[in-house]
């Protein structure tokens, strides 16, 4: 079975939408979901049959394009496919009450996003990475402006400007790499990169850091994130924090480990990550709008993952992968639940939670927030503990202090929200949640509890994945 299917099938679906449209709106929605379920099946099939491979498409190297399936890239492919499948299943039930305008285009966009994120992770050719970087960007800009209200369009414009600037720096780096090395294949670049003069290495690294810095939401290049989250629709935010940023994070550190295997700028990146986390949580403390608040919480978590990846050792990467999984699941739960609350109350101010009368949603939100916070028995705990442990082994006390301080600040605003939820007045009618939504939300929370109580189920796979990622299989 070919790994190209992961990119080809969602794109093919996009082209076949006009034909499917003749069979009615439901046909598009159901075929898209079925295709994603099929991709999920293919992913698990690869996992169980150990179908890890390097696959060449069309021409022989160094010119040919290749897709590399390893334990670590397969982990991300599975994460993206399952997030997207759950999103589609959730939306199938949501759309009967509040569908998006022009739905078939919406399905094209989410499938483009899926194809591009998977392509980013699998591709081992730097120009292909640029192309997928742009495809993921374009579909994310449109998704963010999809509701066509003035705040959605404002979010879309801001996202597009930062994205376009990021892509200039990325293509500049690629151009310099091609001029000095003469190849676009990641494996060949990795072999020759160390031999370059120091100034050129520094210039390329800075350009890559700026290019990806916008996309991995690192301080000070993350000023646009909160506006984009607030302007975009709540369901789409789940995709932004569970898929888009994770794909960019993986690619950035994949390139870093390949090009600079000895960790030349590691210390700088660790401080950058820890400082970003602290800055995000401090800014989050002042927010009253729920989507904006969770945008800052996403920034904090992503910065923690950034710090862990920047440590550049196996244990820290394993921790980062744990946080990536836990954060994706928790943020999906939160944004899915918030979408229901927004539909009912038509407001996203945090005071809204005071009038939330739904014990089920309260419990889901609480479990997700406790997991984000890293309370024992929840999924977020394992990752955070491992990060702190590997920082302690490296003797980086200031960083540990910064992370603990940031977590304390995070705790303040989560407990404020929890306080709102559990002192609510009961005069409103109970918010009705359909059984389909209940099943998905309960599944997500259960997943958080299972990972939190039995991390050993995953730890061996993640450890081998992190060894492969650090070893730089290209």
């Amino acid at each position, binding site marked *: 079975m070919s790994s190209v299917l992961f990119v080809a099938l969602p794109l093919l679906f996009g082209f076949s939408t006009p034909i499917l449209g003749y069979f009615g709106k439901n046909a598009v929605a159901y075929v898209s979901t079925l295709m994603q379920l099929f991709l999920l099946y293919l992913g698990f099939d690869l996992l169980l049959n150990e179908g890890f491979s390097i696959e060449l498409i069309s021409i022989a190297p160094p*010119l040919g394009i290749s897709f590399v399936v390893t334990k670590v890239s397969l982990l991300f492919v599975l994460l993206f496919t399952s997030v997207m499948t759950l999103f589609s299943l959730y939306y199938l039930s949501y759309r009967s009450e509040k569908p998006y305008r022009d739905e078939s285009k919406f399905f094209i966009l989410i499938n483009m996003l899926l194809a591009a994120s998977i392509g980013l992770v699998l591709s081992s050719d730097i*120009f292909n990475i*640029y*192309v997928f970087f*742009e495809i993921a*960007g*374009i579909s994310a*800009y*449109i998704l963010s*402006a999809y509701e*066509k*209200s*003035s*705040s959605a*369009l*404002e*979010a*879309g*414009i*801001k996202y*597009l*400007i930062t*994205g*376009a*600037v990021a*892509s*200039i720096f990325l*293509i*500049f780096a*690629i*151009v310099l790499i*091609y*001029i000095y090395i003469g190849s*676009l294949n990641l494996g060949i670049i990795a072999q020759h990169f160390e031999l370059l003069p120091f100034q050129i290495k520094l210039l390329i690294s800075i350009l890559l850091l700026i290019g990806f810095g916008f996309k991995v939401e690192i301080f000070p290049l993350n000023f646009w994130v909160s*506006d984009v989250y*607030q*302007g975009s629709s709540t369901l789409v935010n789940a995709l932004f924090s569970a898929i888009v940023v994770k794909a960019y994070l993986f690619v950035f550190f994949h390139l870093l480990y390949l090009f600079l295997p000895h960790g030349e700028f590691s210390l700088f990146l660790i401080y950058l990550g820890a400082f970003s986390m602290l800055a995000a949580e401090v800014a989050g403390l002042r927010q009253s*709008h729920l989507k*904006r608040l969770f945008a800052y919480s996403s920034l904090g978590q992503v910065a923690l993952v950034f710090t862990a990846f920047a440590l550049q050792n196996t244990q820290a990467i394993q921790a980062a992968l744990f946080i990536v999984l836990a954060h994706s699941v928790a943020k999906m739960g939160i944004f899915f639940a918030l979408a229901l609350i927004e539909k009912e109350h038509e407001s996203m101010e945090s005071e809204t939670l005071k009038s939330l009368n739904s014990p089920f949603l309260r419990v889901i939100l609480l479990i997700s927030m406790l997991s984000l916070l890293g309370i024992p028995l929840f999924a977020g705990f394992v990752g955070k503990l491992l990060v702190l442990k590997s920082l302690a082994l490296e003797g980086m006390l200031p960083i540990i202090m910064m992370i603990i301080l940031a977590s304390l600040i995070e705790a303040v605003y989560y407990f404020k929200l929890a306080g709102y939820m559990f002192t609510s007045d009961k005069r409103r009618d109970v918010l009705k949640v359909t059984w389909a939504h209940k099943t998905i939300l309960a599944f997500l929370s259960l997943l958080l509890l299972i990972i939190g109580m039995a991390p050993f189920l995953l730890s061996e796979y993640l450890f081998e994945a992190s060894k492969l990622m650090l070893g730089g299989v290209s």
Partner: protein
Amino acid sequence: MFEFFNSPEVINIIVIIGSMLLFFVGLFGLLTQKHIIKIFMSIAIMETAVYLFFIGSLFKLDAIAPIMKVADDTSKFNDPIPHAMILTAIVIAMAVFALGVSFAIEYYKLSGKTNIDTMNEMRH
């Protein structure tokens, strides 16, 4: 009189200095302009500068077009990869700007604003 402009070193230097100047013109515009369309134009100028830099610095004066039927001696060929890359990049950039301008028009219709400083729908 202008013979020395034909030497590859001089052409390379002109291309590099010129494209870097263009890059900073774009960057200056990006940082100082407030109108959304002007910001898109500045970004487009920066991108063009990168494309010129790439094509110009790998350009050889005496090389020929890389077509196998014309000549068998591949050492005389110009490298086709930069051109293929830049063509792809131009297409992508055009798509992004078309999208951006359409966002800007829709936004103007809804709110009547074109200045990026007054775009603060959400900070209240």
